[in-house]
């Protein structure tokens, strides 16, 4: 990270002592979020999500596969996340980093625990099923990749059409209907800086955060959580964030469901 970023991070931290966020947002406000579906026509489903300057693209591909041995009555979901080197001066080419693996697994957990997509409906016939490949591409990093990636994956799944399958052939030009999504899970990621708990950190705030907590809910229950970084939360803070997360659900669900421009 460059000197300017470091200075701005320190500035954000100093301002928080006075209860002010660097970009003047409320502690529990998201930056502007926009969701665009169907941006990649060749994919079975896709969505681009912008949260402030953070931009994430999710693409869905379906392949005919065999069910996993321990879940013979379900199709499969394979989640992957790429922190593209073009997304930030700090990202480098190479094998998947622990950060990108964590990102993919946290998004995966929320969607799976929902359960968001109806995996049993992906069985084609005995021993044959669809595997849903959800690939999250981080195009521009400006903080809060967890929520942006979760929203992009969720919106892309809502956009997904199942290709036609006939006589052992996949016909991608034709569709046999939409992917069955039973439930929308929405993710909220909080950061702790000093005694402040803030939602949707920008990259300057993230650079000085002691720890973060991602909470995915379905509006009535917490579905998945992940704490990150080396700082600590108290049990009371976790309860408080869970409360905010459950309250934010409706607002986020509406954004994820919007098909608009």
């Amino acid at each position: 990270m460059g000197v300017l970023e470091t200075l701005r991070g320190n500035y954000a931290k100093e301002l928080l002592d006075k209860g002010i966020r660097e970009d003047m947002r409320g502690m529990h406000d998201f930056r502007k979020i926009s969701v665009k579906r169907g941006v990649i026509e060749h994919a079975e489903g896709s969505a681009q999500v912008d949260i402030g300057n953070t931009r994430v693209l999710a693409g869905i591909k379906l392949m005919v596969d065999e069910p996993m041995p321990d879940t013979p009555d379900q199709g499969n979901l394979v989640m992957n996340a790429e922190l593209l080197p073009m997304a930030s001066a700090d990202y480098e080419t190479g094998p998947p980093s622990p950060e990108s693996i964590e990102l993919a697994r946290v998004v995966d957990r929320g969607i799976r625990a929902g359960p968001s997509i109806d995996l049993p409906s992906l069985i084609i016939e005995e021993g044959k099923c669809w595997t849903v490949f959800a690939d999250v591409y981080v195009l521009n990093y400006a903080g809060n990749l967890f929520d942006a990636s979760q929203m992009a994956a969720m919106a892309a799944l809502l956009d997904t059409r199942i290709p036609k399958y006939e006589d052992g052939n996949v016909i991608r030009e034709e569709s046999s209907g939409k992917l069955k999504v039973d439930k929308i899970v929405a993710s909220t990621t909080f950061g702790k800086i000093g005694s402040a708990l803030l939602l949707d950190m920008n990259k300057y705030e993230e650079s000085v955060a002691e720890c973060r907590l991602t909470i995915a809910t379905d509006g009535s229950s917490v579905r998945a959580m992940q704490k990150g970084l080396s700082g600590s939360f108290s049990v009371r803070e976790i309860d408080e964030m869970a409360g905010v997360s459950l309250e934010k659900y409706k607002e986020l669900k509406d954004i994820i469901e919007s098909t608009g421009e």
Partner: protein
Amino acid sequence: MASLTNRPELLKDGKRLDGRAFNELRPIKIEAGILKNADGSAYLEWGNNKVLAAIYGPKEAVPKHFADPAKAIIKCRYSMAPFSGLSDHGRSGPNRRATEISKVTKEVFENVVMLNEFPGGEIDIFIEILQSDGGTRAAGITAASVALANAGIHMRDIVYAVSAGRIGEHVVLDVNMIEDNYSDADMPMAISPRNGDVLLLQMDGGFTREQLNEAMGMVLEAGKTISRVQREALEKLYEVGE
């Protein structure tokens, strides 16, 4: 969470399959200092889990560009032996799950180890799951804490970890493998017992806010027992023999 079609009954007469009450831990045994080459080590049995933790360091950080001139870095490797599970031979080497667990475990110890005492240094934490029966990341962290203390590395606290879950409407402590596979929630946590700070928190499944608080309460309460077993393992090293 595995297939729901052949989900077994996880509760019988108000008790869990292994006869435990909802807030009851499995038996835990820890032996410190059992590997001769390591600077610190611990062997832990937690129910049917068998876990080895070993510490090397503090030593000079390698490769050199990893070194932090202000403090020591921690490297952590959590790994599951290919023979550790009840099912087939597992794939050896770190998979995506192990990579994630190694990362969050490292973050736990970055919180409590006095890293500023060893600028430019490195502390290696190795956790090997020799036999797995659910809750292995918690068992690994609990063992690694004892191994770090055994290595004489200064820490703010001796961390413990345990998971809570949910079976139907009941919040339960310390989920084992079969409960983990079929339960309605699983939430591993690592706690610094001196102030109850939460250093690791992961969860999947479903908790209402009330259930979440009940589960966190159970994890804090369980610390009394787990911390005692950890301390006893260390005290035993310095007992004067007959």
